[in-house]
């Protein structure tokens, strides 16, 4: 009797550890496929129409300076292209994920701007002060572009955090997998005479995991309005919202399979158990 109680306690403790391990593996797997995956991030930039939106955002910010400068808005036309933004954003993403060094080059923007200003002011007789002001204006526009795209401090900080996460993940993942394997072996040893109990335990573990994630995503949606997030600017906010929604949607769709598999495992193990019980009764 005491042995049976101890066996059940050990079984359920192992079950809880198994559930924690499965929850963690699922989370790590989802993060690896999404936010820790450079290609996923770049795909989201494309899907969110980030480059075109960012181009508009950049031009709108340039207009701030135009209105005060006395120059016409035509001087900032065509100085920035969607391609240039895409090139620079990819460079920054590579810097974050691969740790490469990337510096945004604003030479083309400044050259085009200078050309536009010179064309606009062709009929004016410019003083030395005017030339100085124009030079300062061009430098300001170049700098504004860099600030909008890079937020320099963030790139190196994010790369540092990313590297830390990858290191932790590379340590935890094998531990979790080993843990799951060891628990399976121990459960096999404990229940070698009644294998269907192991199927039932796995079913319970999967069902618990599925319900856990449903509750977590519900609590997240209740406490945070993900769709209203505003980080840095509208274009970046849209990408981040899509990434977070993508992670939540991936987990939710995986949950359906986990819950269904869990319930099936439980039903199958109970059917096997009922057949075994019937056979035992018949023998008696």
């Amino acid at each position, binding site marked *: 009797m005491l042995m049976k109680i101890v066996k059940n306690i050990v079984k*359920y403790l192992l*079950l*809880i550890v198994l*559930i*924690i391990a499965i929850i963690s593996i699922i989370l790590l797997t989802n993060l690896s496929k999404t936010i820790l995956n450079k290609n996923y991030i770049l795909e989201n930039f494309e899907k969110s129409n980030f480059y075109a939106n960012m181009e508009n955002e950049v031009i*709108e910010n340039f*207009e*701030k300076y*135009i*209105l*005060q*400068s*006395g*120059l*016409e*808005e035509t001087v900032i036309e065509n100085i920035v292209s969607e391609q240039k933004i895409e090139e620079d954003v990819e460079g920054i993403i590579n810097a974050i994920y691969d740790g490469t060094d990337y510096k945004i080059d604003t030479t083309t923007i400044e050259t085009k701007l200078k050309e536009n200003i010179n064309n606009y*002011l062709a009929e*004016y007789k410019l003083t030395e*002060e*005017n030339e100085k*002001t*124009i030079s300062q*204006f061009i430098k300001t526009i170049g700098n504004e572009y860099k600030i909008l795209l890079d937020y320099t401090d963030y790139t190196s900080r994010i790369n540092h955090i990313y590297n830390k996460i990858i290191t932790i993940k590379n340590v935890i993942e094998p531990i979790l997998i080993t843990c799951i394997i060891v628990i399976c072996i121990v459960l096999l040893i404990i229940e070698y005479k009644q294998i269907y109990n192991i199927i*039932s335990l796995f*079913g*319970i*573990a999967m*069902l*618990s995991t599925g*319900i*856990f994630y449903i*509750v977590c995503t519900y609590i997240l949606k209740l*406490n*945070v*309005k*993900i769709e*209203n*997030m*505003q*980080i840095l600017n509208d274009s970046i906010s849209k990408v981040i919202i899509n990434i977070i929604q993508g992670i939540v949607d991936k987990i939710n769709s995986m949950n359906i399979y986990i819950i269904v598999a*869990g*319930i099936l495992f*439980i*039903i199958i193990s*109970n*059917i096997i*158990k*009922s*057949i075994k*019980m*019937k056979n035992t009764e018949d023998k008696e």
Partner: protein
Amino acid sequence: MRRNKLSYVVKATIRDMIVALLIMVLLIFTIDLFLGQEINSVFGILNTVAIKTENKEVVQNIQTTLNKEEKKIINYPEYGTQYATIEISKINVNLPVYYGDTLEILKKGVGHSSGSYFPGEGGSIIFMGHNSKNVFRRFSELKIGDEIKVTTTYGEYKYKIYDMQIVEEDESYKLPIKNDKEVLMVYTCYPFNNIGYTKQRFVVYSEIME
């Protein structure tokens, strides 16, 4: 016999599902116990960047009105929102007027200095706009006697220009805020076609027409 088997399977399945639910509840309770504060901090940080729209909608539904007897606004417009349009037919100006005077507002249209009165309140009103082509570039064409019309969400007000001055940016006393007479002062940067930062302002003074 079959019914017994089925009933056993159903009962055992429900039992196992309840066990799964209980384990999940225990897990969440344990996480809340040990990491509850940290999780709340994370939600707090996320909420600083996630704007709740419910409050915004409530504010936008409140109508700005004027108590004509007391000459006082009831429910001032929210800062940054459009509450009027300004028309100067002489120079083909028809622009939105926003409450506030930030750079963001001036990019969109005409700003209303938050330290001044509102049309209809009987005091000094200050509007400002850039000297760009789409805003107040043609201010130089205005003459004394020209009319300015301001259409607000609570009424229409007409003003007649009686004076125009070029003031230095630090001569704020030339745009006095008073409550004895309704005067609309509209200003823009001067000279109109200057390159770079301008230190002067072109101010148009107008008084309300009865």
